[in-house]
């Protein structure tokens, strides 16, 4: 029911929205909860386990009951708190966890079965037979219990991430936070003030109070307008600080699109901020806790502070006859505000015998509410006192069990809160988060006056730490009402008294946990699921703890608390991973020949972040194998062109460059002649192979190293480490030039014919022997030519500055076409290197040594190098090692597979008999059958023997002959000739 003249809503802006298919009217400034209450909608959801009818309990982000699904289809968002969701024209919300409808939920039968469904029920009941759990019990239980459901479709919403930096981050824009921001901003500090609400002001928006002689809401608006006019202040509303992390880093979730009817293209739904602050002030306020008693969960029963907020901020009363029940002075404020607004207050029940008197409504001192009635909404309460039990008709009960300071963020770096007997609540420990001050209600200061003073003091402390002088600040006049409270956690009696509304945990569940010796608070939590729902027990953890303390005969501080971890309130995975959807997941690296390859319909394969062509299909080819076989044949008989720009290229210069290379490579580069390239092998310090590649000497002090595509980053990092960390004495400079050069392999018997005509002079064997390199002028551009081969054919690699890459690739292809050649892709490249026994990271996978791949002679005995000492360890060489071999299928089964294992021909193919494994396989059109590279115990001595290749996963068993891993042209005549 809306009260005329009350509230901060904009009555000139009506808003029409839909809940469960019914249209309702509200106003700009309403939340879904306030608008539904204004329309007398009390039943808004069903509980998680028992499907109990539930209504709005709170007015903030701690809401456990009023969870709804907003929107339709793929964009539907489940578990939105109606107390946070602002209404807009066209908003469509639906209740959750009910079937077929909210008012008639068949699953409510669970509630009748409640005696059987208490804490620990599942553990005890569904134990046998064990396989039934996964197949039968769990699916049924999961269907019956639950919250909202995801659409199952890809989320079309955009999420964004962003970074912000400031001197002072103020978390919470109530009186303490606003005051802290004002003092710090006036002193010139860069301030970010965040608040999770759509409107800043905190409890000043919800209370009937005055500051400096004006209503609190007027005062706070004045301060906010001063702050918003300052360049050094950033105000962030609708933003929840969800976590505190090391180094003054905070995570914050901003709701950007949730409250907008029309979202512009590109507008994110949420922005996930990482805020780095030199200092911070936590002014997050406090959360009111209910009292547990029988049937305390009916729609119409709310926290007293929420009733006040709905009245003062939204002009809404959630009932006609309101009763108030509490154990502290703050509860009286609710009754007074209601009375002042002309609402009928049925009575105030205060558990304290010394409760203050009041006029205008009856006060039941030393009394408690022990039960309620009303199936889908509160109808009456039972009041129990020394004189017996009374029934009171009421449709709204406001409860206050006291206030819990919002200490969560102070605990995110592993600090524990401290129990305070004065307010019967936990307060932050002083050193929870380095650089963080705590002010206002979240430090246990509950009057407006104390909030303002603590806010100002926290700002002054922060300014001092920042080295800024704080100007003298006048603290505004405000009320400083005392707050007296007496312990009351649960009203004694039979029946179910609810603690955790969201996970349906009762007082007796906590007691049961203690009875079964789950006395640790962490054990109780897991046994009962207390505090494990999306609200993380914000309304119930302290009461549950107090009850556990009581039944186990301990004091509350001795019982301890569970651990508060980020996030403070739920954060969508999509928000945490913002920016990583679709193309944002990882950068795409395209070679300069990409467009031309795509034009030739080459499918792309990912190599690290690079996209490389797999093969280049021609008309008539329907499988990759057809294209691959043709491309191999083409290179072996005419000429092929392949983009090899993705290999890492590192420019190494300096007087000590040669000495440096001698140290990182196993073999010697100081003896390499200018204008020549050499194959090099790099070890890790533990003696295993790290990477390989060719390095060319371009000048006396100038080398160009190549690395494998995948290891380029690792090698650069390694070289930097060796230089900076181990040999800073060496005068050498390194920089990646991978991106500077577009480089193409031109391979095959007609490779020289293809290239001749592109340069000033024709290529000759005398000037360009195998492994020669040097500068060339290619069509007027300065390029580099290398006579190196990864195919085993007479081949070159030609590099030009990348801007010419596309043009050169097209030129090379046009020339190849006239020679009967063409482009080849990764598949053919791989087949040819296997035919030649050239290794890749399939072979040098991190567990092989130079000995294993037959390159132990490349570890020079004349010098030290990275990995040399450790490579000489026992066990890293010798006959027991698995050594690189080739395999030819010689039995009936001709298929070979990578990952298969090798066994002696007569042995059982079981682990103890394992002799080795296969690393690479290919169908070789050159040899006419499949080939494999692999590692076999003592393999080099076993050429000619037969072994079994068994692939247990693919169910293959092939008899193979062990052969030299260089299947084709073992003497290398084709590349040299």
């Amino acid at each position, binding site marked *: 029911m809306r009260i005329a003249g009350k509230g901060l809503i904009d009555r000139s802006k009506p808003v029409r929205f839909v809940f469960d298919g019914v249209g309702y009217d509200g106003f700009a400034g309403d939340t879904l909860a306030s608008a539904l209450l204004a329309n007398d909608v009390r039943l808004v959801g069903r509980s998680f386990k028992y499907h109990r009818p539930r209504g709005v309990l709170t007015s903030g982000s701690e809401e456990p009951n009023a969870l709804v699904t907003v929107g339709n289809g793929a964009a539907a968002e489940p578990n939105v708190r109606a107390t946070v969701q602002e209404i807009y024209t066209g908003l469509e919300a639906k209740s959750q966890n009910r079937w077929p409808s909210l008012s008639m939920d068949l699953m409510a039968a669970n509630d009748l079965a409640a005696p059987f469904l208490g804490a620990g029920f599942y553990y005890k009941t569904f134990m046998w037979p064990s396989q039934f759990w996964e197949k039968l019990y769990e699916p049924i239980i999961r269907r019956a219990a639950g919250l909202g459901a995801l659409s199952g479709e890809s989320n079309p919403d955009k999420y964004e991430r962003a970074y912000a930096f400031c001197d002072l981050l103020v978390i919470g824009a109530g009186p303490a936070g606003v005051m802290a921001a004002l003092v710090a901003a006036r002193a010139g500090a860069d301030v970010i003030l965040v608040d999770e609400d759509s409107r800043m002001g905190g409890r000043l928006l919800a209370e009937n109070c005055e500051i400096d002689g004006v209503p609190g809401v007027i005062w706070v608006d004045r301060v906010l307008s001063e702050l918003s006019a300052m360049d050094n202040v950033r105000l962030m509303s609708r933003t929840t600080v969800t976590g505190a992390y*090391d180094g003054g*880093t905070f995570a914050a979730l901003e709701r950007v699109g949730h409250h907008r009817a029309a979202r512009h293209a590109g507008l994110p739904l949420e922005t996930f901020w990482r805020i780095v602050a030199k200092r911070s002030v936590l002014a997050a306020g406090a959360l009111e806790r209910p009292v547990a008693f029988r049937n305390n969960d009916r729609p119409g029963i709310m926290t007293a502070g929420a009733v006040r907020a709905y009245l003062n901020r939204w002009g809404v009363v959630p009932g006609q006859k309101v009763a108030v029940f509490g154990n502290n002075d703050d509860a009286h404020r609710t009754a007074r505000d209601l009375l002042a607004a002309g609402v009928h207050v049925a009575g105030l029940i205060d558990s304290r015998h010394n409760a203050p008197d009041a006029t205008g409504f009856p006060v039941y001192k030393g009394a408690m509410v022990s039960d309620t009635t009303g199936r889908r909404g509160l109808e009456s309460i039972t009041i129990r006192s020394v004189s017996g039990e009374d029934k009171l008709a009421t449709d709204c009960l406001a409860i206050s069990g006291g206030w819990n300071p919002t200490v969560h963020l102070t605990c995110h770096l592993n600090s524990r809160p401290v129990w305070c007997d004065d307010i019967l609540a936990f307060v932050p420990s002083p050193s929870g988060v380095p650089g963080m001050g705590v002010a206002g209600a979240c430090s246990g200061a509950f009057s407006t006056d104390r909030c303002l003073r603590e806010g100002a003091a926290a700002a002054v402390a922060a300014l001092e730490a920042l080295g800024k002088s704080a100007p003298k600040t006048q603290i505004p006049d405000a009320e400083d009402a005392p707050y007296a409270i007496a312990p009351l956690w649960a009203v004694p009696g039979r029946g179910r008294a609810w603690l955790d509304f969201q996970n349906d945990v009762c007082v007796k569940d906590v007691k049961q946990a203690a009875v079964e010796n789950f006395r640790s608070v962490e054990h109780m939590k897991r046994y009962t699921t207390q505090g494990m729902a999306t609200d993380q027990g914000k309304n119930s953890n302290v009461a549950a703890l107090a009850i556990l303390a009581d039944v186990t005969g301990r004091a509350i501080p001795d019982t301890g608390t569970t651990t508060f971890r980020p996030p403070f309130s739920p954060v969508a995975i999509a928000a945490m991973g913002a920016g990583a959807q679709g193309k944002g997941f990882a950068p795409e690296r395209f070679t300069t020949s990409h467009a031309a390859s795509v034009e030739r319909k080459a499918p792309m394969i990912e190599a690290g972040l690079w996209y490389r062509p797999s093969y280049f299909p021609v008309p008539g080819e329907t499988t990759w194998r057809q294209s691959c076989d043709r491309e191999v044949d083409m290179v072996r008989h005419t000429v092929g062109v392949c983009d090899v720009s993705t290999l890492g290229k590192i420019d190494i210069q300096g007087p000590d460059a040669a000495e440096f290379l001698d140290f990182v490579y196993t073999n010697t580069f100081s003896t390499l002649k200018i204008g020549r390239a050499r194959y090099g092998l790099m070890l890790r310090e533990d003696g295993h192979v790290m990477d390989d590649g060719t390095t060319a000497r371009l000048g006396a002090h100038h080398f160009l190293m190549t690395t494998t595509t995948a290891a380029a980053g690792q090698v650069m990092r390694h070289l930097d480490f060796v230089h900076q960390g*181990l040999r*800073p004495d060496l005068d050498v400079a390194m920089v990646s030039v991978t991106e500077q050069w577009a480089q193409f392999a031109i391979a095959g018997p007609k490779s020289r014919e293809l290239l001749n005509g592109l340069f000033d002079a024709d290529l000759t064997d005398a000037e360009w022997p195998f492994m020669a390199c040097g500068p060339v002028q290619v069509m007027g551009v300065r390029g580099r030519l290398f006579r190196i081969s990864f195919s085993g054919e007479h081949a070159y690699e030609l590099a030009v500055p990348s801007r010419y890459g596309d043009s050169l690739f097209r030129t090379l292809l046009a020339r190849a076409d006239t020679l009967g050649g063409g482009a080849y892709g990764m598949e053919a490249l791989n087949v040819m290197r296997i035919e030649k026994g050239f290794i890749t990271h399939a072979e040098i996978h991190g567990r092989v040594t130079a000995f294993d791949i037959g390159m132990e002679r490349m570890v020079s005995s004349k010098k030290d190098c990275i990995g040399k*000492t*450790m490579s000489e360890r026992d066990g890293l060489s010798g006959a027991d090692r698995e050594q690189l071999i080739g395999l030819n299928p010689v039995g009936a089964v001709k298929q070979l597979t990578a990952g298969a294992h090798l066994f002696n021909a007569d042995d059982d193919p079981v682990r103890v008999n394992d002799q080795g494994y296969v690393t690479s396989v290919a169908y070789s059109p050159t040899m006419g059958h499949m080939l494999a590279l692999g590692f076999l115990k003592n393999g080099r001595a076993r050429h000619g023997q037969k072994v079994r290749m068994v692939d247990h996963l693919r169910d293959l068993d092939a008899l193979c002959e062990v052969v030299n891993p260089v299947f084709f042209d073992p003497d290398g005549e084709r590349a040299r000739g």
Partner: protein
Amino acid sequence: MRITCPFCGERDRREFYYQGAAVALERPVADAGEEAWDAYVHLRDNPAGVTKDLWYHESGCSSWIVVTRNTVTHEILDCTLACDTKSEVSI
């Protein structure tokens, strides 16, 4: 977590690659013997307290940095260039 790169200033942890204990800077000579090499390559302390480890400012300036930090409090006590640490020891 934020690391102060001696060149670039305080930066987010995401810009850095973590390597491990700064022991890696103290490479033994080739003939130092099995124990020295075993310790260098394999043996690492796991202190609850102050530790020194190596971070590479990979998406920043490419410096290798020795970070002294407390594994209990997460406090970062010092950040030094690996090449400077090294030059203190005679090579």
